[in-house]
């Protein structure tokens, strides 16, 4: 159909812009086996690296003998701390202001810690050789319980920090103390508690879990000694940061380092940090002058890179007898493992945990977090959530349910009573955030109607009576969670990573024919950026999304950005895309005015073209304008049609949602069936509903996994107990519930298109919804709080304790 014959609606549909369930452009390669992941790379002469890892949780290294390994045909080198030390690379800085051993020098501090790096011709030989490296250890007392970390007689873990009384976040008061971070008005909070009519206090633990993306971490480092250039391909959620860190560590100038993140097989926070495998591969490639590949196996992934959570939260609520929350007080013991490698913005050692006042109008609050060392793997990443937000949401949503039980109030009624009201936005929280927008009561009520909440409660009453009469062996639980996320880090005035502000960027070049390439500083790991960014640009500029190619992950070509995690892509880089589109449109307007020989003010923009006001048949579409941009621009205007935008967000965005979960628990086996799960998300303006729904499905499935079974546990000897898919719960299609999704739309007032981000909301809201459902099944009995994960065995133990087992 010729362009002129198309209606406005047809032209609009042709753009496939914001709001359209556009099919994904990235799918074509993935469904044909043509994705390009790091382990798919095969460079000429490439060698393969593998680690020798510690079998001990805490031990002194007495000697390392690599001679047998080096004698094995095909082995090229074995690196140990002694090799890295002269390069000052045996330790590397962490994002949290600590250092982490790249290869253990005198001591190992957690099981599976990296001790030596073997480089060989193929992965089989490397694995064989790793077995041949003889390490002599002397076992030391192991510290696994974070509650014992600061005991006076607790073993000293970090000898490298001896005498260091000042940490990255203030004074250290014990050899295993990392930091204390507090926020809020302690005095006013204590006073509110002293005067409270009702209080609750509970230790709510969020266990150590792991993001476990299907693709493990991997890299290929390739040093070109003649050019003095280093190329690193890797599973990097934040490739530009990796390049900066690599330059600082290696002293290779930043422009001579090329960091490339190809397709990534899921990240969920696992691929934010810099790991010893990357450093060792780079060093090995520099030393040997050939490319070196390192790919984690699953055991290494689960036990050595990037755990999440491990927050032990003592939560207190103060309230009036009729259910007004008057104060929140919380103390968190944060188990950071052997090195503080938390991936948080530099000034936020506990992330944005101070979002823990949740969706409620709480007059005063005080929170203190103590970070401590233990003999466990380092990490502390945000597993599909913004920094420590899921811990905060879990704490407040469990605590509100516990308060509801104490007050004998319905959990929804208590929430409705305490919600921040729509007219209070922008809302200043007691712990320092400015919530940008929200309409909580509407979302809560919509969720109640959709699930027939009142009828569910009535059914639960009947079922409880039937259980008491011995007519059923099932306990019904209804879990409600109402969460507020804080995403889109973040304003550079208070958010940075190693001193680089957390802005993000978009650059676009529109070619003469009107087709375009746009590059962004973020990096998709499955979130469909190639599809959705093009939609934002299509709507803003007026060229079809199908004509816009999106590229990310190559630090040579993409503008600098801080990467993808904490649901920041849409809030930050998506905003840069919208603004870049507006810059293009401004220039296009000048060109159109010139072509149509009218003033700029005489033009109006309509979908994909400029029209002369009052003379709509006089018009120039974006394709025509793009062509003119390369040969016929008004005097004084530069040729070409390109723009770049670096966006520093004025505030975070605050997505929210109402989730309701119904479970049936078999009291004799503890088996918990999820009967129903309803998720209402408000992520502001919806760019691609299909992609949003997919993100919600995936996030809820991860929440289900966390709440119902995931845990990276350590035994008393420091042995990690969950380091394979045999032991670590990843649900299959059989266990995974069916998800019902819904939404409301409350656009962000400060984001150029009103979008807020959604990828992580379902993880943040899902976990408390499941946990509240399981707890609610026992709410009529003598139990206040059951710790996660709610696997069958634990749930059965609760039944047994309550004398319910038949």
């Amino acid at each position, binding site marked *: 159909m010729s362009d002129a014959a198309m209606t406005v609606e047809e032209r609009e549909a042709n753009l496939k812009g914001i709001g359209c369930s556009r099919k994904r452009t990235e799918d074509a390669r993935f469904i*044909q086996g043509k994705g390009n992941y790091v*382990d798919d790379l095969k460079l000429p002469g490439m060698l393969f690296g593998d680690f020798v890892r510690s079998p001990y949780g805490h031990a002194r290294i007495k000697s390392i003998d690599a001679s047998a390994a080096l004698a094995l045909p095909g082995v090229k080198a074995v690196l140990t701390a002694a090799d890295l030390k002269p390069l000052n690379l045996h330790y590397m800085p962490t994002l949290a202001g600590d250092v982490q051993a790249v290869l253990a020098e005198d001591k190992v501090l957690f099981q599976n810690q990296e001790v030596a790096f073997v480089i060989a011709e193929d992965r089989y030989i490397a694995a064989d050789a790793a077995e041949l490296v003889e390490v002599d250890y002397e076992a030391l007392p192991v510290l696994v319980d974070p509650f014992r970390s600061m005991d006076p007689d607790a073993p000293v873990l970090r000898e490298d920090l001896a005498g260091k009384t000042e940490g990255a976040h203030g004074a250290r008061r014990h050899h295993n103390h990392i930091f204390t971070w507090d926020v809020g008005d302690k005095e006013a909070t204590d006073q509110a508690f002293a005067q409270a009519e009702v209080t609750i206090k509970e230790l709510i633990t969020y266990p150590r879990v792991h993001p476990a993306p*299907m*693709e493990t971490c991997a890299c290929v480092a390739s040093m070109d000694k003649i050019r003095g250039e280093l190329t690193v391909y890797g599973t990097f959620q934040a490739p530009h940061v990796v390049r900066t860190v690599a330059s600082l560590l290696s002293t290779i100038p930043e422009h001579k380092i090329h960091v490339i993140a190809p397709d990534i097989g*899921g990240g969920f926070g696992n691929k934010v940090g810099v790991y010893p495998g990357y450093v060792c591969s780079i060093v090995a490639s520099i030393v040997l002058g050939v490319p070196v590949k390192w790919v984690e196996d699953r055991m290494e992934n689960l036990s050595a890179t990037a755990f999440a959570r491990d927050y032990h939260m003592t939560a207190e609520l103060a309230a009036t007898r009729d259910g007004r929350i008057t104060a929140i007080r919380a103390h968190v013991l944060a188990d950071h493992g052997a090195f503080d490698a938390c991936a948080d913005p530099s000034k936020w050692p506990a992330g944005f945990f101070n979002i823990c006042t949740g969706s409620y109008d709480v007059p005063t609050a005080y929170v203190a977090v103590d970070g401590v060392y233990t003999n466990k793997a380092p990490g502390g990443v945000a597993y599909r959530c913004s920094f420590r937000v899921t811990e905060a949401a879990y704490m407040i949503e469990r605590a509100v349910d516990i308060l509801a039980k104490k007050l004998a109030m319905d959990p929804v009624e208590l929430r409705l009573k305490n919600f921040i009201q729509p007219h209070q936005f922008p809302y200043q929280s007691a712990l320092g955030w400015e919530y940008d927008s929200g309409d909580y009561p509407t979302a809560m009520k919509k969720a109640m109607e959709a699930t027939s909440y009142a009828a569910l409660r009535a059914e639960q009453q009947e079922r409880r009576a039937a259980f008491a009469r011995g007519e059923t062996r099932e306990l019904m639980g209804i879990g409600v969670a109402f969460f507020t996320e804080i995403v889109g880090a973040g304003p550079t005035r208070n958010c940075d990573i190693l001193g680089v502000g957390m802005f993000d960027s978009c650059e676009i070049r529109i070619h003469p024919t009107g087709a375009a390439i746009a590059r962004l500083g973020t990096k998709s790991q499955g979130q469909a950026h190639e599809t959705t960014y093009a939609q934002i640009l299509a709507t803003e500029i007026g060229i079809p999304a199908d004509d816009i190619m999106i590229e990310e992950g190559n630090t040579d070509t993409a503008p600098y950005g801080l990467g993808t995690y904490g649901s920041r892509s849409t809030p930050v880089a998506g905003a840069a895309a919208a603004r870049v589109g507006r810059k293009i449109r401004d220039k296009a307007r000048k060109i159109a005015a010139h072509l149509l020989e009218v003033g700029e003010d005489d033009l109006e923009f309509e979908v994909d073209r400029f029209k002369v006001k009052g003379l709509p048949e006089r018009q120039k579409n974006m394709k025509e304008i793009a062509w003119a941009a390369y040969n016929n621009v008004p005097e004084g205007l530069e040729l070409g049609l390109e723009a770049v935008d670096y966006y520093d967000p004025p505030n975070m965005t605050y997505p929210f949602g109402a989730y309701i979960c119904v479970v049936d628990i078999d009291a004799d086996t503890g088996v918990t069936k999820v009967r129903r799960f309803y998720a209402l998300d408000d992520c502001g303006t919806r760019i691609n509903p299909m992609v949003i729904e997919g993100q919600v499905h*995936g996030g809820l499935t991860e929440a289900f996994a966390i709440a119902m079974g995931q845990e990276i546990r350590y035994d008393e000897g420091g042995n990690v107990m969950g380091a394979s898919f045999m032991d670590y719960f990843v649900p299959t*299609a*059989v266990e995974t519930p069916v998800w019902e999704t819904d939404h409301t739309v409350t656009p962000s007032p400060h984001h150029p298109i009103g979008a807020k981000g959604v990828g992580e909301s379902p993880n943040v809201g899902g976990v408390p919804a499941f946990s509240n459902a399981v707890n609610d099944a026992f709410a009529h009995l003598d139990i206040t709080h059951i710790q996660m994960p709610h696997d069958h065995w634990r749930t059965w133990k609760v039944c047994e304790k309550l004398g319910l087992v038949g």
Partner: protein
Amino acid sequence: MAKTQITLALNGRQVEALVEPRTLLIHFLREQMLLTGAHIGCETSHCGACTVDMDGKSVKSCTVFAVQAEGAQIATVEGLAAPDGTLHALQEGFAEMHGLQCGFCTPGMLMRAQRLLQENPDPSEAEIRMGISGNLCRCTGYQNIVKAIRYAADKMNAAQKEAAE
């Protein structure tokens, strides 16, 4: 290490190669045959990312030695589309129903699903879920994968019905 010669049919093409006795089929496919569609997610036969079809059965190629494929018919995701490039109904279904996100599990899922539909051309939702329970996905929550497989079953059944009429 001494190498053994193997001969097999790979996506319908006869292939001869030298492999070490301990070489796993997944490494043979990915590193020697340069077919990188099948992925490695665990190497312990839990995740299914490495699923390929061997003599009419789904196998996890991380737990099969290449020498065991001697004389076998092996099909990988690279052979799923028709030679003229027309996508298989499953490939189409996965794209239409948003059955993939990061794409890492997808080749294994597709190969498992094509075998499932050979075994059971008209599976219920529960049968699909059970049928792909050896394949893990961390991104999609499976709901759209189930829909994608159902889409393909419908399309294939309709085509068969048409052909029969």
